[in-house]
């Protein structure tokens, strides 16, 4: 009852101060160290005459209940590309204790085993340079260089929530670039602590800061005083990664690799021979047209800076100014000489190595690029 009244008052006071109303979480439960005093009063009569009221009281102290909840706010694996840097998974750390506490944060790669979002698919690579950031700059989402890179939350009040980003690079430290559809699962653990130093204010959690230092707190084990405050761990377990009642909690999220799904095919056809056949034959002096087709299949990431090189065989002679780019491909073997752009020998042919080349700026999913050139058989 009282708590609700206080909350309403607090919210309206805030509304006066700042235009966008910030939702302030209510504290969880009766604050630690609160005395609960039960007082009874007795009125009675003797011989029909009211006697003086008597009272009795009993007091005990509410202990510190440590309960932290870590959760991911990702709804599905975070889509990444091989080698991507600073890929972001997002978590929340909620202080469900009845006291303000510090929390130590730790992020690790899961080693194999079922992934977070799809138990039928296993974690198959590790990320590198795994880091932890806390939302401090007020702009939703992760901003590199602006949100604080820390591993401690200092002074998170009861009921309050901090947004935490686990950021890493999509290159496996031992196996390099991950394959298409590979999954990397990361685990964020928060441990209740004390003694942290303050840092930048955390967005959405008044009084909390992206701190430093601090050390894990321990549970009071032995029997103890009715009128002293003890620490009691009440946190939940998280699968096999975190035990119940240890002052910690954890959650996971996944990265899922979507590589570019590039394929390249090369076709050739004889388009003329020196004897003027109606059906040209591959004889010395015949002109052969090559058609190179690069395709990014459906579901792939956009590939950029796609360099195609093709060395003209030693038995053939490149036909100057015959490069044509991005004419439509017609099965079974033909790149059109219209609808695209003509290449130049300056840009597309290196005489010293007899190499035809072109760099396509980008190829999105389901798109196709072609390169056509001609050469004569020596």
């Amino acid at each position, binding site marked *: *009852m*009282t*708590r609700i009244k206080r909350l309403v008052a607090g919210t309206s006071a805030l509304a006066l101060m700042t235009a966008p109303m910030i939702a302030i979480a209510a504290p*969880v*439960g*009766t604050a*630690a160290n*609160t005395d*609960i*005093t*039960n*007082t*009874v*009063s*007795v*009125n*009675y*009569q*003797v*011989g*029909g*005459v*009211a*006697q*003086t009221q*008597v*009272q*009795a*009281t*009993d*007091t*005990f*102290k*509410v*202990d*510190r*209940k440590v309960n932290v909840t870590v959760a991911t706010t990702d709804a599905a694996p975070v889509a990444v590309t091989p080698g991507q840097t600073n890929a972001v998974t997002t978590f929340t750390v909620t202080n469900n204790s*009845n006291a303000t506490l510090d929390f130590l944060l730790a992020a690790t790669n899961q080693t194999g085993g079922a992934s977070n979002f799809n138990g039928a698919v296993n974690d198959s690579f590790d990320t590198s340079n795994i880091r932890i950031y806390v939302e401090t700059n007020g702009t939703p989402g992760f901003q590199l260089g602006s949100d604080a890179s820390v591993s401690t939350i200092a002074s998170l009040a009861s009921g309050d929530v901090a947004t935490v980003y686990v950021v890493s690079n999509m290159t496996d430290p031992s196996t390099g670039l991950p394959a298409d559809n590979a999954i990397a699962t990361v685990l964020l653990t928060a441990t209740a602590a004390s003694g942290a130093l303050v840092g930048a204010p955390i967005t959405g959690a008044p009084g909390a800061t992206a701190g430093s230092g601090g050390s894990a707190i321990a549970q*009071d084990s032995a*029997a*103890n*005083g*009715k009128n002293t405050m*003890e620490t*009691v761990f*009440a946190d939940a377990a998280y699968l096999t990664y975190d035990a119940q009642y240890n002052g910690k909690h954890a959650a996971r999220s996944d990265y899922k690799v979507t590589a570019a799904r590039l394929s390249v095919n090369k076709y050739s056809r004889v388009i003329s021979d020196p004897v003027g056949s109606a059906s040209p034959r591959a004889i010395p002096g015949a002109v052969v047209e090559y058609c190179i087709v690069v395709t990014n299949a459906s579901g792939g990431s956009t590939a950029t800076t796609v360099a195609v090189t093709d060395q003209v065989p030693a038995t053939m002679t490149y036909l100057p100014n015959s490069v044509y780019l991005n004419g439509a491909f017609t099965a079974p073997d033909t790149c059109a000489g219209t609808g695209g752009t003509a290449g130049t020998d300056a840009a597309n042919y290196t005489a010293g190595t007899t190499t035809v080349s072109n760099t396509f700026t980008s190829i999105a999913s389901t798109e196709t690029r072609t390169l056509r050139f001609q050469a004569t058989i020596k």
Partner: protein
Amino acid sequence: MLLVRFHIFSLACSLALASAPAFAQEPIELKGDVKVVRIAEQGGKRVETYAEPTQVVPGDRLKFTTSYRNGSGQAVQNFVITNPLPKAVVLTEVGNFEVSVDGGKSFGKLASRTVAIPEGGTRAATVADVEQVRWTVASIAPGASGSVTYFASVR
């Protein structure tokens, strides 16, 4: 545990109350006590046990007991025990007591209580609305004793 033993004239002195008692020989004893309810396994069954409230955290269920004894030589009547609930607890179940949801102005069984709602009108009161509980013992013979109990949980 706090044991309060009231001798009538020491009470009169210490509390400096004006009204003179009708009799002046014997005490009424009152004792308030609280235990925290723990669930334990005993012989494969889950049973409730009552422990000293050394470790109490939000959500714990508490058993508040008031014991009384008529140490006087005379019967007492209309023995009314009024117990405002501490603000940090909420009643968890009704019992053999009357409740007040209006700060002690009126008492009755919970089912008969209503509370005003902000939109206008009233609704039936729930255990969460209870602010005070009250027991009435019609008569206690000389030397007789008893106890009353309610259960509440820490907010």
